[in-house]
């Protein structure tokens, strides 16, 4: 029966997270070493999430860090935002595989400065890809351009009655300021304790924007490609 069941039985693909077994859908192969890529992010999630906390994972990709957060603190809730269609599908598949659909809410929206129909340009197609661009005039030749819903985080929280975040992880490849400018009320709320943003090295605007809300940088992690800054209330 064999002709038909010849589909290769792959070994389950596991995330390189040692504490708990987290299975990834084969489509997430590109992201299987996410812990090694950002060990400080994993350490931060493990240490700072408390029962009842709410993490917003903005630019969740296939959900590696959302999954880590959900297993590291089972009583926290994670909202994962990912507009790329293939990464969003992979994220949902990973939730199905790990039965974490109850703890992680995956939403296929792009957070931005306005609520509107926007264009989203994919630098490369494929689940787990990144460096896409929201808005017109991408700084690269896109492989595919799509119209999708861009929404202000404040609008989304209010419309859907979402719980305010206690933690935010923002990794949106250039749209950080747009995300923050649509999240005025969320940033103002005392509920929010810590944020981690991936920023462009040399760009001080994000630190300035967050300083206005009383956040200051408490940790910096730099690799040749990326700079991640963690902020907490001063």
């Amino acid at each position, binding site marked *: 029966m064999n002709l038909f069941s010849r589909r290769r039985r792959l070994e389950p693909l596991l995330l390189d997270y040692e504490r708990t077994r987290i299975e990834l859908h084969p489509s997430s192969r590109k992201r299987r070493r996410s812990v090694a890529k950002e060990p400080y992010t994993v350490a931060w999630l493990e240490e700072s999430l408390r029962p009842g906390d709410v993490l917003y994972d903005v630019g969740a990709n296939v959900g590696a860090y959302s999954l880590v957060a959900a297993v590291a603190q089972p009583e926290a809730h994670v909202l994962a935002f990912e507009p790329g269609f293939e990464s*969003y599908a992979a994220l949902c598949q990973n939730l199905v595989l790990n039965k974490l659909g109850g703890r992680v809410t995956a939403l296929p929206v792009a957070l931005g400065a306005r609520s509107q129909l926007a264009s989203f340009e994919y630098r490369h197609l494929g689940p787990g890809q990144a460096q896409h661009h929201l808005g017109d005039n991408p700084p690269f030749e896109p492989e595919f*351009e*799509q119209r999708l819903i861009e929404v202000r985080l404040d609008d989304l929280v209010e419309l859907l009655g979402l719980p305010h975040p206690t933690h935010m992880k923002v990794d949106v490849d250039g749209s950080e300021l747009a995300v923050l400018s649509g999240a005025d009320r969320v940033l103002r709320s005392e509920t929010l304790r810590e944020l981690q943003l991936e920023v462009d090295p040399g760009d001080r605007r994000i630190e300035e924007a967050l300083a206005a809300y009383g956040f200051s940088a408490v940790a910096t992690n730099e690799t040749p490609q990326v700079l991640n800054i963690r902020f907490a209330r001063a």
Partner: protein
Amino acid sequence: MLIRNKRVRSLGRVLPGASPLYHAVMKWFLIRRGVARIDYPGADIRIRSNSEEIVHLRLRPLAKEPWTVEWIEENLRDGDVLYDIGANVGDYALIAAAIGGPATKVVAIEPGYATYASLCENVQLNDLGDKVIPLPIVLGEAVRLGSLSYRDTSAGGAMHTMDGSGGAYDQPVLVFPLDELPSRFGLPGPTLIKLDVDGAEAAVLAGGAETLRRPELRSVLIEIEEDRADEVLGHVERAGLTLRRRFDERYGEQLPGVWYGIFER
């Protein structure tokens, strides 16, 4: 992958006369190849065929719903905005975009994550990104966070239910009323609507009362579940649309518990 006898038999209705073995081999071949041409002769449209559901249900949109294809061909003019609500992997949205003029827009609404991903892939595959706007949302009566319970999680599947639970995965979904899409996100209002949402049609229409009354909206095609037909007809008739044609049969057999209606102003 098991070839279930029931599936093979029902595929036999699509191509009467062919043997189950022929279908089994074709299905295996199409899934392995990953891309297949649909049965629409008017345009060269290819879709991803990487799941059993897609091969089984989505490669023959013309055979499955000839009236829908005919409705698109007869009604679609350049500059039209077609809302394909419950677009699945995009068969009919792609047909409309392919045969429509350069100013045609198709808003393809499909919330199921795997099906939505396939829909986007198909838009990209056919290079119709400038005409088709795929939206991963549910249309309903009020803005809220709902959940979609899956009968199964593969692409191209259908018959999921809203706000149930206990399925393979309860996917959180954004629910918006049809009436609010233009004002909230600047989407163009529809001139044509195709609605196929497996039982949720009354909820979609309840959230779209204003849209249904718009004079620009010329024609609406709805898959209607027999049980709730009165409610659906009520919404449509209140908006000044009347039933013009009705389709109850496919391949000479009665459709099970549903019919398709074309309504015009």
